[in-house]
C-alpha cells in the first residue's frame, strides 16, 4: 500500500492560431521553409519595436472564459530576461504580475466523478525560435519562423493527484482549445506543450513537499510517464531517508528518465520588469462580455446533456463529448431527427471510432457525413440491411466519397424481408430438419439458432435474420 500521494501542477503552453504573429505582421504558420516567416521585428533587430496583435488577447480571454477565470480589465506585459540563441532579443515578452486571466477552474471527470482543478492564471507571451543541431559538423542552426508566434500559458494550482488525472486534465484542455477554435493543438508540431511540477507527501500531510519542475515534456503520454517516473524517484529518496532539493529537471522520454538541469541555487533570475515598449492592455467589460457570448457549448456541458438529457451511457458520451469533431458530427446527426440519439451513438462508437482507431485517421480526414450515417441507420431500422452489412457500408463511406444506397446496391447487401419468400424458406428448412424440431420441443432451446443459421445459409445470407427468427418460432410453436 502506497503511503505517499503525488501532487502535480501543470503549465500548459498552447500556440494560438492567429493569422499573424503576436508583435509583428509576419505569417503565423507551421511548416514553412526555415527563416521565411521573419522580419526585422521578430528577429529583434536593433531599433525595432513590438506592436500587440489584439487577436491574441481575444483568444486568451476566450480561454479565460472557458476556464471560468476572472478577466482583468487592465493587464501588463513584462520582459523575462535570459540569454539563449533561439531568443533574438535576449528577453521574452510575457506577463508577470498582472496576467490577462486569473483564478479560474476546470472540472474534469475522473471515473465518472467530478474533480475541480483550480487555474491560477492564463497569460500571453511570444514563442522562441527553434534550434536545429547538425551533428555532422558540430554546428547549430536556428529557425526563427516560430519566433513571435503567440502563446498562452495556462498555470494550474497543485490540485492534480495522479498521472491519470493529469492526462484527463490535458485531454480536456486540448478539447476546449479545439472547441473554442483558438489553437491547432497539433502535438507533433509542438503547438501544445507542458511543463510538469511534481512533489510527493505522506497521506494526511497538509504541507506540500519539495517540488521538481520537469521541462521538455513534449506529449501528453510523455507527461504521464514523466509524472510516474518522478513520483517514484521522489518516494524512493524519501523512503531511504534522503533529502529532496528543489530543482529543474529535463525529461528524456526516449530513456524514460528525468535528468537534473539546475538546482535552486543556480535557478535563473529572469529579472522581470514592465515592457517599456508596450502600453497596458485595457479590456472593457463590453468586450469581455462579447467574447464570452462567442463561447460554444463546452465538453463538460455536452457530456452532461448527453448523459442526462439524451440518456447515453456515460462511457460512450465521454468519448464523443471530449472530441470536438465527433461531438459536432453526433450533434448534427441528432439534429436531423431521423434516428434516435442512442442508435447514432451506437454506430459512432461501434463503427466510426473503430475505423478511426484502426486507420489512425481524424474524422475530418474521412468522407462520411452525419446525413450518410443516419441514412445507413435508417436502412437497418427498415430491415433493408443487416447490422453486419451496415458496418461494411459505414467503413466504405469513410474511405470513399460515395452514397450509402449506391454501396448497398453495388455490393448487393440488401436483405430479403419479403414475408412469403421467408415463409417458404423456413418451411423448406423445417421440413428437412424434423429431428431438430423435436429436440427443440424436448427443451433443447439452442436448436433455434441452428435452424435460423440453416435458413440464412440457404438464402445465401440475404434473408433478414430478425424476421427469420420470428417465423421459425411461430412455426415451431404452432406445430403442436
Amino acid at each position, binding site marked *: 500500500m502506497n503511503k505517499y500521494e503525488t501532487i502535480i501542477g501543470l503549465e500548459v503552453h498552447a500556440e494560438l492560431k492567429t493569422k499573424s504573429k503576436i508583435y509583428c505582421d509576419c505569417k503565423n504558420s507551421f511548416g514553412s521553409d526555415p527563416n521565411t516567416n521573419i522580419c526585422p521585428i521578430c528577429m529583434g533587430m*536593433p*531599433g525595432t519595436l513590438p506592436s*500587440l496583435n489584439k487577436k491574441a488577447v481575444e483568444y486568451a480571454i476566450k480561454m479565460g472564459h472557458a476556464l471560468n477565470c476572472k478577466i482583468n480589465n487592465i493587464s501588463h506585459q513584462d520582459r523575462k*530576461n535570459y540569454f539563449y540563441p533561439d531568443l533574438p532579443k*535576449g528577453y521574452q515578452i510575457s506577463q508577470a504580475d498582472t496576467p490577462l486571466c486569473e483564478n479560474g477552474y476546470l472540472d474534469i471527470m475522473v471515473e465518472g466523478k467530478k474533480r475541480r482543478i483550480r487555474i491560477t492564471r492564463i497569460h500571453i507571451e511570444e514563442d522562441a525560435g527553434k534550434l536545429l543541431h547538425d551533428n555532422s559538423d558540430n554546428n547549430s542552426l536556428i529557425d526563427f519562423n516560430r519566433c513571435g508566434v503567440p502563446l498562452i500559458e495556462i498555470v494550474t494550482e497543485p490540485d492534480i493527484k495522479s498521472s491519470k488525472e493529469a492526462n484527463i486534465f490535458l485531454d480536456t484542455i486540448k478539447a476546449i482549445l479545439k472547441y473554442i477554435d483558438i489553437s491547432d493543438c497539433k502535438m507533433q508540431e509542438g503547438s501544445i506543450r507542458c511543463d510538469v511540477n511534481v512533489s510527493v507527501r505522506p497521506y494526511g500531510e497538509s504541507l506540500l513537499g519539495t517540488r521538481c519542475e520537469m521541462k521538455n515534456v513534449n506529449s501528453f503520454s510523455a507527461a504521464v510517464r514523466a509524472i510516474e517516473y518522478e513520483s517514484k524517484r521522489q518516494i524512493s529518496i524519501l523512503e531511504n531517508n534522503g533529502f529532496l532539493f528543489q530543482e529543474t529537471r529535463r525529461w528524456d522520454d526516449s530513456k524514460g528518465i528525468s535528468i537534473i538541469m539546475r538546482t535552486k541555487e543556480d535557478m535563473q533570475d529572469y*529579472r*522581470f520588469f514592465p515592457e517599456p*515598449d508596450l502600453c497596458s492592455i485595457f479590456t472593457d467589460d463590453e468586450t469581455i462580455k462579447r467574447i464570452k457570448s462567442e463561447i460554444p457549448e463546452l465538453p463538460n456541458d455536452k457530456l452532461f446533456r448527453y448523459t442526462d438529457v439524451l440518456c447515453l451511457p456515460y462511457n460512450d458520451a465521454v468519448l464523443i463529448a471530449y472530441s470536438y469533431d465527433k461531438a459536432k458530427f453526433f450533434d448534427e446527426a441528432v439534429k436531423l431527427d431521423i434516428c434516435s440519439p442512442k442508435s447514432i451513438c451506437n454506430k459512432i462508437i461501434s463503427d466510426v471510432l473503430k475505423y478511426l482507431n484502426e486507420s489512425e485517421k481524424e474524422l475530418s480526414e474521412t468522407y462520411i457525413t452525419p446525413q450518410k450515417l443516419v441514412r445507413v441507420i435508417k436502412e437497418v431500422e427498415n430491415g433493408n440491411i443487416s447490422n453486419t452489412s451496415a458496418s461494411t457500408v459505414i467503413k466504405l463511406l469513410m474511405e470513399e466519397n460515395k452514397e450509402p444506397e449506391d454501396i448497398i446496391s453495388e455490393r448487393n447487401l440488401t436483405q430479403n424481408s419479403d414475408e412469403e419468400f421467408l415463409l417458404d424458406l423456413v418451411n423448406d428448412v423445417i421440413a428437412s430438419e424434423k429431428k431438430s424440431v423435436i429436440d427443440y420441443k424436448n427443451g433443447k432451446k439452442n436448436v433455434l439458432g441452428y435452424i435460423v443459421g440453416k435458413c440464412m445459409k440457404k438464402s445465401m445470407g440475404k434473408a433478414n435474420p430478425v424476421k427469420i427468427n420470428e417465423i421459425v418460432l411461430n412455426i415451431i410453436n404452432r406445430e403442436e
Partner: protein
Amino acid sequence: MLRNKQCSAVEILNDVNERIDKTENNIGAYLSFNENSLLHAQTIDELLAKNEELSYLAGIPIAVKDNISTKGIRTTCASRMLENYIPPYNATVINKIQDAGMILTGKTNMDEFGMGSSTETSFFKPTHNPHNTDYVPGGSSGGSSAAVAAGESILALGSDTGGSVRQPSSYCGVIGLKPTYGRVSRFGLIAYASSLEQIGPIGKCVKDVAMLQTIISGYDKYDSTSCAHKTEDFYKLLKADVKGLKIGILKEYFSSDINEEIKNSIYNTLSILKKNGAKLKVVSIPMSVYALNSYYILASAEASSNLARYDGVKFGYRTPEYNNLSEMYIKTRSEGFGDEVKRRIMLGTFVLSSDYYEDYHKKAKKMQAVISNEFSDILKDCDILVSPTTTDTAFKIGERINNPIKMINNDFLTVAANITGLPAINVPCGKSSKGLPFGMQFISNKFNEQLLLNTAYAYETYIDGFDFGLKLD
C-alpha cells in the same frame, strides 16, 4: 532662398560639404557619410524646377545621430558591437525626413549607445567642440550638435534619454529640443532606455527647429508608445510673443553648484522676457533632486535588457575564438562593449535582480511618479519653467572620462524632463569668459512644444538672432 530659386539644393549641399572638408578633420562630428547625398539634392532641384509641391525643408541637409537606423547605411551606435551593422530598414523618422525631401549628409558620432555626456565613450573617436577643439561637445548627441555648430550640416537629429540633445546643444551653442515622450516615433531608434528617450531636432535658429519638429512628429503604428495627439505645424504657428506668459524659475536648479556666469546670463535673459510682458515667479520642486538617482536606476535597468540582443548570435560583433556558448557570450560582450556601457549593464542587471528589485527599481518608479506629480502641479500655475541646461560650460577632453560620477552629474538639470516625459528645449544664452557657449532650458506641459518654440523664438527675436561667435566663412 531655395524656394525663391536664389540657390539650389546642390549649392547648399556643396556649401556644407566644403565646410566639412575644411573643419571635419578637427571636429570629427561624423562617423560616416551618405554617398548618395548629391544625387538626392539633384533630384530635389529637378522637382523644384518643375515647381512641384515640396515640404519647406526639401533640399535642406540634415545629419543624423548614428543610433537612428538608416537602411543600407552603417548604423553603429559608436560601438564596436555594431561596427559593421547595416540596418535592413529605415527608422520612421528617416522615412519622414526623406519624404520631406531633406538631404541626409551622414551619421554623427555619439557616446556609445548614448551612454555618456561627452561623446568620448565612442568606440571610434572623440568629437571636438567647434568653439574650442580642446573641449568636448557634450553628449551623447555630440556629433549632431557639433556638426550643426560647425556648419557641417544645417540641421541634425539627436536622441535625448537624459539630456543627450539639450546638453551638447548647450555646450555647442545651438538649439536642441527634446519633444514630449510619445510625440516622435522611436521605431528604428536603437534603444538605450525605451521609456525615457525621444528623438529631437537640433538647429541654429528656432524656425528651422520648428520645421524639423513638425516633420518628425506624429503617431506611428510601429511604435505603440507614440501618441495619437494631433500635431500642429509648429513653424506656421510660431509667434514671438511672451505677453502674459507665466515663467516659473526652478529654485533647485539655480543652486550654488551652478556656474555664476550662466546664472547671471539667464537672469539677464529673464529680465528681457519680463520687459516684454512675461511674468516671473520662483517655484520649487523639492523632489527633483532625486531625479538623477531615479534616472540612473531606470535607464540602466532598461539598458541591461535592451542591450541583451548583442550576443554575437545574429548580427554585430562576435568574438573570434570560443569553445562553447557561454564563453562566446562572455567574450563577445566583454570585447564588444566599452566600459561605460558595461558599467550600466551591470548596474541595470543588479537593480532588476529579484533580491534588489523592490529596493531599487520599484522605488525609482515611485520616485518617478512623485516627481511627475510635482511638475504637473507646478505647471498648473506656470506656463513654462526655466533653468540652466548645464551646470557649467564644456569641459576639456579627457578631463572627466575617468570620473564616472562627475560625468553622470552633468545630467543633473536635464533628466527631470525625461523622467516626467515633459518637452524641454535648450536655447543658447551666452558665452563664458573662456569663450564657451552655454544655454538655458525651458520646460512646458506635455504636448506643448509650441510654447517652448514660441518662447525661444521671442527671445531670439528680442536679441536680433543668436550670436554663435563662430566665424563661418
